[in-house]
């Protein structure tokens, strides 16, 4: 009996062992099957899946180059800011969230609510905000609200240098001024990074890694003197307040190099607040502010009036038609170039020219005509020169064509010498029938200051790339009159300030020369209005000119309608600061 029981139990054990063995066998077989499937059959796909989860490809944005003034002060740079965004699907209470962070961001909560309830996967709440403000919002720990770093362009000098630097759009593309012209050099070359990351987002050592670093953009060294730029802008703002003018523009050039020391105007604009172009101001609530970004010093064309006489007289002297002491007989205060023009009584009929002040007919020397700014005398001198030679000198001095300055959308000006026009030469001799920019006029006067050598104005003196290699900007020069003629013209300009129409342009301690200009503005109906554009262009010190300053004041009140009354004081204020900034010693007691 005992033997049978023992045999039975042995048989049951064997069955159990067999079952367990089979189970283990199947289990191992299953695992082996799965192992083969995972490691062999699906190996490549799964490896790819894993890699795609770990692998990250990112574009590395380059750092945009900085812009410096001549003293190394920063005019524009790029810093890291934070851009707030939301994943609308994750935001639980959009109305509450919009109200909560709307005030903190300075964005209308209705606009935010609309964005937070949109059916998009990603919406920006506000871009390029201060890191502290972003941290404050993230500190609220609102589900679905995030921030990511983004570069933003900052202009530390604000509105002071805005007419020079221009601005970029929200994505960092140059839109205006130097930012536009030098966009390619400033923006640099983007890099890219391909690497494996762990759960914490850190690169996995020894993993796949292909990193091509971004190449930062080149820095621009400009010829601008920031303190002088500020003084010039302040002088313009003061002039607008005093004369009730529409706008005021100043260009300051270094005579020898053509470098722009200051180029500014008023009204002003904040480059950080303006990121779109709207030159026509369509739909703008603030037309004045909208217009302000346009740099009239480079783009605005105006009839230069008497400041143009510098070219007429220089041409006549250079061609030997007159000397400074040459007497021009019978200079009246009215001159009829076109028969019957003065009989019509209509001041808008071309061909009848008046001096600014009535005077008796008299013999006048060339110097007297220039100092008194006689239109009639100037036209009589131009008559000796003839239209062809007059036009050639006007063109040689740079009017009617772009100076080639490194600034966006420069205006070429207009030379109106239509075929058959019998009076255009006479008008051009006194600054009508010609439209120039303040920059062109400054460059023309700089040529007289530079012994007759016209030099192309420029703002950027050099570009410095990431390796420290410097590229110096080249400038074009050409001789327009002889040094002797330039010297005579400088003396005539000094006489205008000492005893003529430009006395308000005098600067204590320095001998200054310059010329006033007052030109009536054309109305919408192409008839001249009572409104004027008052200007003054001059240089100092007259014995060895270092600086040229051109001032244009648009539509001053009647009391200040002449260049001598409104523009000359601005010139004096700016010129004094310019001479101080350049360390030019006083040359008179």
């Amino acid at each position, binding site marked *: 009996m005992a033997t049978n029981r023992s045999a039975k139990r042995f048989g049951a054990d064997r069955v159990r062992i067999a079952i367990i063995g089979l189970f283990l066998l199947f289990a191992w077989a299953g695992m082996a099957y799965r192992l083969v499937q995972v490691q062999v059959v699906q190996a490549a796909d799964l490896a790819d899946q894993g890699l795609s989860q770990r692998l990250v490809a990112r574009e590395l944005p380059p750092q945009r180059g900085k812009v410096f003034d001549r003293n190394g002060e920063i005019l524009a740079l790029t810093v890291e800011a934070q851009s707030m965004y939301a994943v609308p699907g994750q935001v639980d209470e959009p109305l509450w969230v919009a109200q909560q962070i709307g005030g903190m961001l300075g964005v209308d909560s209705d606009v935010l609510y609309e964005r937070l309830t949109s059916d998009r996967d990603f919406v920006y709440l506000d871009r390029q905000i201060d890191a502290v403000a972003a941290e404050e919002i993230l500190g609220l720990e609102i589900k679905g609200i995030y921030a990511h770093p983004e570069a933003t362009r*900052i202009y530390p*000098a604000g509105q002071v240098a805005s007419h020079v630097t221009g601005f970029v759009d929200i994505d960092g593309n140059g839109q205006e001024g130097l930012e536009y012209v030098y966009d390619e050099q400033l923006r640099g070359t983007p890099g890219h990074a391909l690497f494996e990351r762990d759960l914490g987002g850190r690169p996995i050592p020894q993993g796949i890694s292909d990193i091509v670093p971004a190449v930062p953009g080149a820095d621009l060294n400009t010829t601008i003197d920031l303190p002088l730029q500020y003084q010039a802008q302040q002088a313009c703002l003061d002039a607008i307040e005093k004369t009730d003018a529409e706008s005021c523009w100043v260009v300051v050039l270094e005579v020898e190099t053509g470098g722009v020391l200051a180029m500014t105007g008023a009204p002003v604009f904040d480059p950080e607040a303006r990121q779109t172009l709207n030159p026509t101001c369509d739909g703008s609530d603030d037309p004045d502010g909208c217009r302000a970004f346009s740099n009239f010093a480079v783009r605005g064309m105006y009839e230069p009036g008497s400041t143009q006489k510098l070219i007429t007289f220089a041409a006549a002297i250079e061609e030997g038609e007159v000397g400074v002491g040459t007497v021009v007989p019978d200079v009246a205060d009215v001159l009829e170039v076109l028969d019957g023009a003065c009989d019509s009584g209509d001041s808008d009929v071309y061909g009848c020219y008046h001096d600014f002040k009535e005077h008796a007919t008299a013999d006048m020397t060339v110097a007297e005509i220039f100092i008194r700014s006689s239109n009639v005398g100037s036209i009589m001198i131009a008559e000796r020169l003839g239209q062809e030679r007059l036009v050639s000198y006007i063109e040689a001095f740079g009017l009617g064509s772009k100076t080639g300055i490194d600034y966006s959308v420069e205006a070429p000006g207009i030379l109106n010498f239509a075929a058959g026009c019998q009076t255009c030469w006479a008008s051009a001799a006194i600054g009508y029938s010609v439209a120039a920019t303040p920059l062109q006029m400054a460059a023309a006067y700089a040529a007289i200051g530079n012994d007759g050598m016209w030099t192309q104005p420029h703002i950027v003196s050099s570009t410095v790339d990431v390796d420290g290699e410097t590229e110096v900007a080249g400038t074009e020069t050409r001789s327009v009159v002889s040094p002797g003629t330039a010297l005579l013209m400088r003396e005539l300009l000094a006489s205008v300030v000492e005893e003529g129409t430009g006395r308000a342009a005098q600067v204590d301690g320095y001998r200054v020369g310059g010329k006033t200009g007052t030109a009536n503005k054309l109305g919408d109906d192409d008839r001249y209005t009572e409104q004027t554009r008052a200007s003054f262009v001059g240089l100092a010190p007259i014995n060895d000119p270092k600086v040229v300053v051109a001032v244009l004041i648009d539509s001053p009140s009647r009391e200040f309608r002449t260049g001598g009354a409104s523009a000359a004081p601005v010139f004096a204020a700016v010129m*004094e600061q310019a001479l101080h900034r350049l360390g030019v010693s006083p040359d008179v007691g």
Partner: protein
Amino acid sequence: MTARPFQQGATEDRLRVLKGRSRSGGLVAPWMVVVLIAVIGFLGLIFARTSLDNSAFDLAELERSIAEQSALNQQLSLDIARLENPARVAPLAEELGMVVPISTNQILVDLSPSGPTVVSVEAREEAQ
């Protein structure tokens, strides 16, 4: 019974000296040495790999720190530039009673080898 005489030649034939096994060779087999070297090598490899990974993480951390410091540097440059903006400085200077110098107030400093001397504009003009 007589004693058998000592047979020297026969004894010499039977006895021989056996070469003993060396003590060290008996304790560590050559394969154990190989295994030991392999284990040490493996552990060394793991240690080197871990060190390399740690260094890589340290490097990544340093790079992140450099980026942070660069951003901070940029921010400080910006702060300095904003503080130096003439539009901020000039009104403050005026509040403090400072004025823009006029030409006749200029003082020229002669930096000749004999030693710096201060010369007013008026004095220089008189000398000339």
